[in-house]
């Protein structure tokens, strides 16, 4: 397969996953902000989203104050912000357009229609209808894209690059949500009473609330939330689950220069596979997640260098 084709497929799936993750993150922040708290504390949560995406400067250039409305406007429908949901949906569509001969017509029509519909909605319309409804729509469109991919695409190299993009992006995003929210919820790492609603919102943001109930049949504790989102291998948005898929798909597309990337993915996978949540928390969750995100970034970089960026012409 052409490197450029693989590149478009990889990024097509990353962008739609990113739009979904962003919708989830904004949704949980929005829900948490509805719980009584000081205005300062609330704005702190919104600020964390901007910081998380390293968008402080761009945001400051457009908005004077960090508050719910400004952050939502900036992250939902600001087309000049490359990281906004609408921009991600546009990038998805553009990447799909470039490879419409490789993906199935149903995939193309789904991603094209998502962008056409998103483009029609102003921020005011979204806000009036309730941002929650918009976030649900984004999640649904992302599910539809994934579903048509799974249901119609031949499971060849194209499919493996799409899965790889989805899983790397998702691993990164779950780690981010957990990092920023865990921090806010337990700023001092103490063992004080935990807020059921806040943890519940976090779980719901990664569709893990019911899963938690089913898996633990007990009250929600921060340790278990961390364990579920990091170590459960059968929970579709956990780090462990994502790495299972990353390693498997890397194996399927291997070429003669991808050995090191594969080794690193395998190592990271093994560490998740054999880790205990007590050890991770003792070492410090923030440190663990920062290290994890760095390594995911390195993996993405490796995939780029091994497959997507034109190979060394000397080869």
């Amino acid at each position, binding site marked *: *397969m052409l490197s450029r084709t693989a590149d478009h497929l990889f990024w097509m799936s990353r962008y739609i996953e990113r739009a979904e993750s962003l919708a989830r993150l904004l949704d949980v922040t929005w829900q948490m902000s509805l719980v009584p708290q000081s205005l300062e504390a609330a704005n702190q949560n919104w600020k964390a989203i901007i910081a998380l995406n390293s968008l402080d400067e761009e945001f400051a250039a457009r908005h004077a104050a960090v508050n719910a409305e400004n952050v939502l406007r900036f992250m939902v429908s600001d087309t000049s912000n490359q990281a906004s949901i609408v921009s991600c949906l546009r990038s998805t569509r553009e990447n799909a357009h*470039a490879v*419409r001969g490789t993906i199935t017509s149903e995939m193309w*029509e789904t991603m094209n229609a998502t962008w056409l519909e998103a483009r029609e909605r102003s921020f005011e319309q979204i806000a009036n209808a309730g941002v929650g409804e918009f976030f649900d729509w984004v999640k649904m469109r992302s599910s539809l894209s994934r579903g048509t991919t799974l249901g119609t695409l031949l499971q060849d190299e194209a499919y493996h*690059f799409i899965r790889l993009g989805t899983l790397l992006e998702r691993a990164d995003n779950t780690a981010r949500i957990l990092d920023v929210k865990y921090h806010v919820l337990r700023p001092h790492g103490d063992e004080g009473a935990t807020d059921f609603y806040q943890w519940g919102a976090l779980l719901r943001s990664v569709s893990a609330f019911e899963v938690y109930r089913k898996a633990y049949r007990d009250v929600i504790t921060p340790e278990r939330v961390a364990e579920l989102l990091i170590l459960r291998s059968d929970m579709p948005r956990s780090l462990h689950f994502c790495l299972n898929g990353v390693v498997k798909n890397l194996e399927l*597309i291997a*070429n*003669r220069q991808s050995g090191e990337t594969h080794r690193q993915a395998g190592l990271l996978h093994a560490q998740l596979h054999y880790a205990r949540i007590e050890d991770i928390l003792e070492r410090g969750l923030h440190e663990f997640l920062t290290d994890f995100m760095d390594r995911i970034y390195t993996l993405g970089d490796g995939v780029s260098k091994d497959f997507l960026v034109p190979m060394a012409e000397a080869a």
Partner: protein
Amino acid sequence: MNFYNEMVDASGGVRAHYQGYDQWLRATPPERIARKRAEADLAFHRVGITFAVYGEEAGKERLIPFDIIPRIIPASEWTAMQAGLRQRVRALNMFLHDVYHDQEILKAGKVPAEQVLNNAQYRPVMQGVNVPGGIYAHIAGVDIVRAGAGESYVLEDNLRVPSGVSYMLEDRKMMMRLFPELFASHKVAPVQHYPDLLLEKLRAVAPKGVGDPTVVVLTPGAYNSAYFEHTFLAQQMGVELVEGRDLFVKDGVVYMRTTQGPQRVDVIYRRIDDDFLDPLAFRADSALGVPGILKAYQAGNVTLANAIGTGVADDKSIYPYVPDMIRFYLDEEPKLNNVPTWMCRKPDDLAHVLDHLAELVVKEVHGSGGYGMLVGPAASKAEIERFRQLLIAKPDGYIAQPTLALSNCPTFVEEGIAPRHLDLRPFVLSSGECVNMVPGGLTRVALTEGSLVVNSSQGGGTKDTWILED
């Protein structure tokens, strides 16, 4: 002006080859027709069979209108036309070979040397280069119109990157889907094997010694007006659709960059103009091309279809000489008519043209796509005056032809069924001694009442073209 009607003769009777269709049309309830037309529109939209229009908002895509009344040509007529097309394209390829080798036709004085050698489309880099089978225009799109009492003329030989064949194929698919009963009752010659024929031709012109050639389609990218067609042809042939940046040249060999490493490329069906093909040889600012590809081509390590430099044979300043080419190379009389042409670079011709601007069609020598032309009878006084100034300022940039009374064909328009003017573009494929085509071609129809310009960029539509066995 009297126009030849493809369906109805002068006395109002339906022509023999349209009688079956006419009966069907009369017997079919209008509601069913309306429903089917809406269905066709929807299907074309959803599949995204669109083209981009230059000058409109970037990335904007439009649908080419499709008309459900087919353009029907009896097989006997097509057989004659096909023989004429073979003859013409063969002579054009021989002309190109000659121009880039010994230039016998120039020495014989049949075509003025300066018209060829000073032509912007003449590529000195091709001088002395041998191409497989001596074929330059592997794919030719020859525009044919019918005028006057029904005689045919060649309007234009498109030998660079002619487009439209995907519409020919999609139109047929749509007609068969909408009205299968018509195909049961008519013996319509099939066209769906075009991609196979094309692939066969492309493989046949691979560099010597390559057993199983790798063929690719080279596109300028997703924002090109014909991008749909590029993806369509690549998909139908089962070959990679590449952009310039997917290819690179090393030691005179062209490779594509794949996830498994570099892969050698043998034949490139390129849908990029000469000027953008190689920034090292032509336009240095081209980001679409492949640096060094000309050298690989000259060395015979890769075949380009069409060849570089074919524009010198389809230029409007060379067009008037095609009948002489046929006589010179094949020692035959041309089977297809040329439109009488005034070459404004000649003072006598210019004087005549300036005196008759209101009756003539004036075209830019290097123009295409229906841009930059004057249709005298339909033009305003101001437009005619503007062209008068252009002609006086740069006479060698223009030719003029009589305004042909293009034939028309009943077509669905807003107010019902009305006659609209049309042309035909058969796609002629050459490799070595063989010149082949699928029966018919793309029929383009001018949807605006009275308009003689059928180009899709100017609001033209298309019809399915039927070559009908008796």
